[in-house]
């Protein structure tokens, strides 16, 4: 007997959801940027300045950094990441799979935090790997930038002449 867990794990249901989301992609990259702009302040809580007037500029720079990083990945990986953002952008799968009931720009930090924890602790490898991909993209784009290094007491590379 195929249990629900096995069903999702084998990827059949997961793939179906991804297909549904992919077929619906009206706003391919716009969707991705909106998801990231909502996730970044939550994933980077404690790293992103709270009051800084540049906060929104820093978020946008991080979105751009992530977009550049994705463009450098292998086509196969880019396709998977595209599917992940389709799933998160498409309202029905956003609600059903991510459990986020409002559009991303309106989602509260609590709702986004709950989504991250649900995927992180999910029974399904597909969702756990989705959580991992999102945080990897965000952290890599953030800590790639020298202006984030002072906060972690990293002096940057030494001078070599």
């Amino acid at each position, binding site marked *: 007997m195929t249990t629900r867990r096995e069903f999702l794990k084998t990827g059949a249901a997961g793939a179906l959801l991804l297909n549904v989301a992919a077929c619906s992609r009206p706003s391919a990259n716009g969707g991705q940027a909106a998801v990231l702009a909502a996730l970044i302040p939550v994933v980077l809580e404690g790293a992103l300045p709270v009051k800084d007037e540049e906060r929104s500029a820093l978020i946008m720079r991080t979105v751009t950094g992530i977009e550049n990083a994705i463009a450098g990945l292998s086509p196969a990986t880019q396709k998977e990441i595209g599917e992940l953002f389709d799933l998160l952008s498409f309202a029905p799968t956003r609600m059903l799979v991510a459990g986020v009931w409002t559009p991303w720009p309106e989602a509260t930090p609590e709702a986004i935090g709950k989504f991250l924890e649900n995927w992180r602790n999910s029974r399904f490898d597909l969702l756990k*790997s989705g959580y991992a991909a999102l945080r990897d993209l965000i952290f*890599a784009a953030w800590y790639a930038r020298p202006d984030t290094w002072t906060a972690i007491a990293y002096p940057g590379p030494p001078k070599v002449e």
Partner: protein
Amino acid sequence: MRDSFREGLAAGWKYIDASELAADQTFEADVVIIGSGAGGGVSAELLTGAGLDVIIIEEGPLKTTSDFKMLESEAYPSLYQDSASRQTADKAIKILQGRCVGGSTTVNWTSSFRTPPPTLQWWQTAHGLKNLSVEAMAPWFAAMEQRLHVGLWPLPPNENNDALARGAKRLGIPTEVIPRNVKQCWNLGYCGTGCPTNAKQSMLLTTIPAALTRGATLISRLRADKFEFAGNKVSALDGLALKPDGLHPSGIKIKLRARHFVLAGGAINSPALLLRSHAADPHGLVGKRTFLHPTVISAGLFATPIKAYAGAPQSVYSDHFLKKTAIDGPLGYKLEVAPLHPILFSTTLQGWGESHARLMREFANSQVVLALIRDGFNPASQGGQVKLREDGSPLLDYPLNETLWEAVRRALLTMAEIQFAAGATWVAPVHEADVGYKTWRDAKQGIASLPLAPLRCRVVSAHVMGGCAMGATPEKGTVNDEGRHFQIENLSIHDGSLFPTSIGANPQLSIYGLVARNASLLAAELSGKPRPAIL
């Protein structure tokens, strides 16, 4: 800083960036070498040394000393497979593997170990590779150690490595100094982003320049797509030139013809090329038994700065837990440390939000121990399998089983105990459960019951081995102990995919030594000159 590679290019070395080609083209040589890493580099030097005409092709770009700026943001996309985030099929293991001229030797941390005697003895007895004795291999390792300036690291270890040495010593666990392939090393700590000071004796600085000086041709940004066969021989290799982005084929097709082909694309890409080409594989072995040294991580916080970003990345190791159990018993592990840089550390650490930010604020005081688990000896440790995606690109499926998790638990305990003994104030196995302990007593209790599962407990790898293994007979392997394909007459495999098990040590010198032997034999055969006296 001198950039001798660029000087060589200016002096007329034959080099082609395939992304700049405007028309289809055919190249011909005595030998075509696929891949410019440890195996391809050594092959190129020895084959050109015998007077053979050689073409080396590389899928990644050519980056040289003056390109190496010690920035992760530049190095990962340009020098590593999939921007340093190549993953296994279920995404539970992240793999660091090079993708540039010099392959992983351009970006590795320079640890240079001979194949451990117990591994060679196991290959002789369990895999029938009788010729690969410790005594027979010793001169080849010695020759490559000399060629690549391998020596025990003479300076004191950095704090990151010293914590491993200090903690282990307090517990009566012996540690040793790591031999490194460096010359006049500045002790900077940026080996992983390409050596900026010409210290690392990678293929980029040694064997490839030697081959180019003798007239070899190097073609970068050229993907080896498929072999064509005529009877039991490779008749040609079909290559796809990549666009300047290094990712997408430009549409330009390159055909390479040669008397002999040397496949050295690294474990994962080498078996994938054979699979894509539908190469003879009567016993269904290609891609199977691919090993990773699955590696788990323990992070420790110290009251004083560790600065794990500075200084030789790896200079101390312990093989105590490899020697403690039978080679085919419960899986043993090698202990080393990892250098920390902001992207590598932030993406490896568990969690998100404030809990993650708090750990990042302790970056300079963080210390990290690695346990590299020796896979492929215990019958329950069969490694993974390289398969092809729909688009023909390789995908490694590596299931993590109970035999492995049992070793992971022992390793996490060992590392925590060592870190506390070294003076850590807090130790955390890198695991999405977000656990952390203030005393060894708490850690011992906590780790004993920590649920271990894929995508929960962090597992990484920088050592991909196997998939086109040597065997005593065609039923047991893809190639013989000389790297010669059992079914395809003019094809040799000269890279880490040869290994029938994992190595149980960082593999670069194992590849150098074995390939030096096999490329010397091949050079003698193809050139009609006598076999090397060293045999």
